[in-house]
């Protein structure tokens, strides 16, 4: 049984269609990436999953049925726009949020100590939240999401505002939770984190599902579309190339759909004075896939508008 099933969901705000016919499933014990550019409809989809908004059409099932109050207590949600009582002290605020999820105050306090130690916040328990740094507030927000030991975690941009040490810590925690059998839905723009953590993803653009499946399979499907080149020559203005990036002496080329890599090789070799040291059909990064799909969508949209 899927932990979350979103089926043909639609949501409009006035004339704006925020989500159109989006469907996906999230399985128990997986880290699922909910991706998309800004304004794609990710947050609206999350809010519908959590019964903050109701869909105009379609169905959403959480833990095998409609989301009720008991099921809400099994969810930990970290919204993109963080929310804590700035003028209250850290410990009572976190304990309050945990008790609202059904655990006793004593249990919340007991668990809180170990989380505060893990995030190196134990000295700030009695400080007002407004007196904490942005990074500390972010860590506090993560604790608020985890303190009641949820079975389903919905985290929106969990790494924003964290330094590399804490980013690694949060990453480890997310992996630990997966090992414990928890389900994690993660929305982020940090594609390398998605690549490192997520089993499966859904990519939403302009409210529609444009990509959905296992990360490895998706990358393999897009493998023919990426090239890694080293050498000297003009690798920027090649025909059939969607995007070119230069990093650490390597040119990473994302090809337009339908472009044959051999045609690109021929175009390079036709250049005068070209010196080719490496030409490799590369597995694209998830970021390449993201950019390719979104740009293709935008291109098609432009074509439709013109015609």
């Amino acid at each position, binding site marked *: 049984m899927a932990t979350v099933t979103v089926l043909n969901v639609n949501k409009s705000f006035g004339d704006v269609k925020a989500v159109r016919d989006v469907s996906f499933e999230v399985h128990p014990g997986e880290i699922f990436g909910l991706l998309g550019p800004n304004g794609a409809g990710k947050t609206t989809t999350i809010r519908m999953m*959590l019964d*903050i*908004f109701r869909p105009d059409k379609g169905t959403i099932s959480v833990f095998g049925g409609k989301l009720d*109050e008991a099921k809400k207590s099994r969810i930990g949600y970290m919204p993109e*726009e963080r*929310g804590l*009582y700035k003028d209250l002290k850290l410990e009572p605020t976190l304990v309050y949020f945990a*008790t609202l999820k*059904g655990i006793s105050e004593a249990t919340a306090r007991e668990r809180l100590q170990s989380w505060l130690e893990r995030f190196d916040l134990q000295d700030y328990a009695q400080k007002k939240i407004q007196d904490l740094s942005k990074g500390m507030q972010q860590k506090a927000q993560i604790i608020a999401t985890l303190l009641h030991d949820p079975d389903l975690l919905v985290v929106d941009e969990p790494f924003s505002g964290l330094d590399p040490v804490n980013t690694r810590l949060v990453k480890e925690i997310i992996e630990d939770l997966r090992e414990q059998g928890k389900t994690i839905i993660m929305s982020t723009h940090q594609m390398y984190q998605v690549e490192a953590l997520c089993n499966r993803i859904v990519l939403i653009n302009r409210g529609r599902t444009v990509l959905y499946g296992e990360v490895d399979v998706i990358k393999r499907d897009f493998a023919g579309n990426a090239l890694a080149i080293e050498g000297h020559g003009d690798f920027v203005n090649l025909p059939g190339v969607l995007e070119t990036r230069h990093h650490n002496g390597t040119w990473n080329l994302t090809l337009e759909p339908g472009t044959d890599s051999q045609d690109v090789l021929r175009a390079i070799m036709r250049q005068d004075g070209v010196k080719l040291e490496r030409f490799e059909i590369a597995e694209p990064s998830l970021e390449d896939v993201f950019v390719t799909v979104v740009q293709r969508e935008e291109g098609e949209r432009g074509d439709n508008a013109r015609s």
Partner: protein
Amino acid sequence: MRGHNFWLVAKHEYAKIVKTKSFLLGTLGVPALIVVVTAVSVIVALGQRGVLPVGYVDHAGILDATVLPPREEGEELVALRAFSDEALAQAALEAEEIQAFYVLSKDYVQTGQMKLVYGQKRPSEVAREDFVAFLRANLLAQQSPAIQKRVQEGPWVTIRSADGSREFDSENILSFVVPYAAAFFFFFAVMNSGGYMLQAITDEKENRTVEILATSLRPLELIGGKALGLMSVGLTQLAIWTATGLLALVVATSMFPDLLNGFNIPWSFIGVTMLFFLPAYALMAGMMTAVGSAVTDHRQGQQISGIFNLLFTFPFFFIVLIMAKPNSPLVVALTLFPTTAFITITLRWAMAIVPLWQLLVSWVLVVSTAVFSVWVAARIFRIGMLRYGQRLSFKHILTSLQGKE
């Protein structure tokens, strides 16, 4: 509704508000102000007789310095000094030996004519009253002590309603003061707590905690819990102010032993107040929540809440009418209208009997409107909470009430 979360929100809200500086200032500030004003009044009153004696020139030959008016134990009378003629009295006044002097004309008994002469400052009312009491005591010197006492104290009128359910003693101001004090307390409570409620809702919108709360509890749990927390804050204020009032009464009674003479504890009034206070408070809390949910920030909410405050405090504009014609149609309408009911009833209580049917109808209306307002607030809250930066239109509010969003 899960009771657990409802109580948690109420407890959280209560603790959050009572720890704020504005609450401490608002709650302790009012009694502190009363104490200071009372203390200043007492000091001024005690010093009002003035240290200098009051002189008199008795051309009528009716005043005997040994005949003094009856006094309470320990009560001082202003010092009196007799002069044989006006020139001597004038000289004493200029030498600042006396604060003023009275001149009784020869035909005083027939005409009642008397003259008061003073220098830079008019003698205080207390000093003047003391002299009049002295004069009255001398005029009555030949009468029996019972008649003397009756004339000095004046009549003792008890005003009783036709059905015998209520009565006032004309001499006892507390019977009138208590209802007015209750009306003013509610006025302060509305002003204070409405602001807290509005702040609580807009704060959670501004600091984004609302999105986490929305995934932890139902809007009605959140709004109901907040309303209860706020009511507890109101009751705490009431308890502190009542305790201060009682303390002030104890102090005042020790200084003015007659204060409680003829004062009966108005149990029926206290009962009616308690019955109306909580639903009226909940109504206000519900309305403020609805405003807080529909606006984008606290400042915007304050402008609208000012109008809502007016709905509750409106009867004060008609205080003269309520005193003069407490049973006029407009006053009855204000009694029945849910937001104005509490203050109108308390103000009317001091002046008239509020018919039982009006109390019953009014209470039913207040309670049902209060329940409805909390329900409406929860519905508006549901859609309003996540529309950051967007003010809810009337259409949106109607949509939410119909449960379409």
